[in-house]
């Protein structure tokens, strides 16, 4: 991946801004799609109430904690833009021609666009999810003094989800249609990302596998920090996020270098 020089930063900030602005155009559609989020939260609020009752806990979280946990995992997942589809369409239509002949890093362009779009989707989805969770289960006990650490972890999670998706998106350079890979990955996120249940509640074998994969650090871990902050857990999460971000950055850079040499830019 091309390193960002200080003078180059402005172009990526501008990409993030235009991506965010573009998303505002779709804001009405976006709120409509949030109905799905409300439906899922409603089902799980009923489920956790029934299963955990008044004093029960799962992985150290009571029914209120479990619903708030799910608000954050769901919001991360549904706020992640589907750039694998965009890259695939660009390769198929040949529109990638305009992306490749610009003086920027293709990967950083998409990372910036991802951050811009993710930011607005995250804020709106979180607002909807938080209102629902507050009205149905009560307030979340926020560790305000440690909120800065949690935000850092969420930011790293945003980068990590981008890298996980984008490395698969680049498979379009070889296969044009990358959807089957993304479908598998999304199911892995459901399970090993701990989307519905914290991975700490899994049986030992499954838990170890999820600890070794990046999905947990992109979804479950920051959500868990938000609802149940703990310094020992924080350092573990930040280290995991940093290691996986480095590994996936290297994979993405290598894939781009290799893929761009063989991509067919279709169309006249």
């Amino acid at each position, binding site marked *: 991946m*091309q390193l960002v020089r200080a*003078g*180059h930063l*402005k*172009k990526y*900030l*501008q*990409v993030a801004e*235009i991506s965010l*602005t*573009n998303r505002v*155009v*779709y804001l009405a559609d976006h709120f409509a799609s949030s109905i799905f989020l409300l439906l899922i939260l409603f089902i799980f609020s009923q489920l956790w109430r029934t299963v955990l009752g008044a004093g029960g806990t799962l992985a150290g979280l009571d029914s209120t904690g479990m619903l708030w946990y799910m608000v954050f995992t769901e919001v991360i997942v549904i706020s992640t833009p589907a750039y694998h589809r965009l890259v695939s369409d660009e390769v198929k*239509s*040949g*529109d*990638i*021609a*305009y992306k*490749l*002949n*610009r*003086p*920027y890093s293709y990967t950083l362009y998409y990372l910036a666009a991802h951050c811009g779009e993710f930011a607005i989707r995250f804020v709106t989805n979180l607002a909807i999810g938080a209102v629902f969770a507050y009205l149905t289960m009560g307030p979340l006990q926020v560790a305000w003094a440690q909120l800065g650490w949690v935000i850092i972890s969420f930011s790293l999670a945003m980068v990590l989800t981008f890298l996980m998706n984008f490395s698969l998106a680049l498979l379009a350079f070889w296969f044009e249609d990358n959807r089957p890979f993304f479908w598998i990955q999304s199911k892995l996120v459901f399970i090993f990302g701990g989307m519905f249940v914290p991975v700490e509640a899994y049986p030992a074998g499954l838990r170890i596998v999820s600890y070794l994969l990046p999905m947990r650090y992109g979804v479950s871990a920051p959500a868990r920090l938000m609802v149940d902050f703990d310094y020992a857990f924080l350092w573990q999460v930040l280290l995991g996020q940093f290691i996986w971000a480095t590994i996936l950055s290297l994979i993405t850079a290598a894939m781009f270098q290799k893929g761009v*040499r063989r991509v*067919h*830019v279709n*169309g*006249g």
Partner: protein
Amino acid sequence: MAVIEVNRLHKVFRTKTKEPGLRGSVQALLRPTYSELTAVKGISFAVEEGELLAFIGPNGAGKSTTIKMLTGILNPTGGTAKVLGLVPWESRLQLAYNIGTVFGQKSQLWYHLPAIDSFRLLGSIYEIDSREYSRRVGEVVELFELEDFIKTPVRKLSLGQRMRCEIAASILHRPKVIFLDEPTIGLDVVAKLKIRELIKRLNEEEKTTIFLTSHDAGDIEQLCKRVIVINHGDIILDAPTSYLRHNYLTTKIVNVKFSAPCPELSLSNVEILKHTDKGVKFRVDTKVKSIEGVLTELFAQVDTEDISVEEPGMEVVIRDIYGRAAEVGEQDAVG
């Protein structure tokens, strides 16, 4: 000084082939077979600074593939090329600061946002400082007459307006060379004329070297001094446009709509293709008779409501070039 130098540039695409039906799909999965398509066959040419060159040919001739290699987004299979002294596929990012591209069938503008938002983004991408950016946007808005629709979302623009914005977006960073790939495709006559006028002004006023591909003979006739014709990946003609005009673009189709019915009409040295009470369609060879001469003869006999002149299609021009090359070959053989 040559700004583009191409030497024996060659591109072969390897594509997977598949027999029809389900059986073919399964076979392709288990034992994939590939075919090779040579899109560009070792072409060589040079383009001088400030030149407005037409690079023409029918669909699938290799025009776009050549542009993609010259802009660094495709790696060639063989040969060399330099644009502004850089090998495009090795110095793609460095070259990008000094070249512009317009692909007529694709868009670089954000569809739901006004063009000015895309301009602002491109200003940052090309690292244009804010004072220079404001001055430059003012210049292109004036040059391309974008004032009335620069703040309108791109999705609401006509194709002609959008194409003006596309070209303007490509020259914001003052590129030394601009590659225009079919910039007039799909445009109506008025929009085409406007785009041609703008390309000419860009070349004359900003001294930008322009590499234009098109399969519209009108683009070439009205804009370029030199033309390279490519077909099946080979250069089949590299000559001044005047040579092409005098030798190959001489046949025109004229459509005339009468103001009042005219059953009888007599025109010399033209081939009448269709004649009704309401109008006439005929073919003229301008080497035999000028359009002006035909129209003078026509106006003496009938009042007209509308007249249009069609250029020969690129396929016709290429067939003609091949036809004459074959004739010369035969004469050489006889001689």
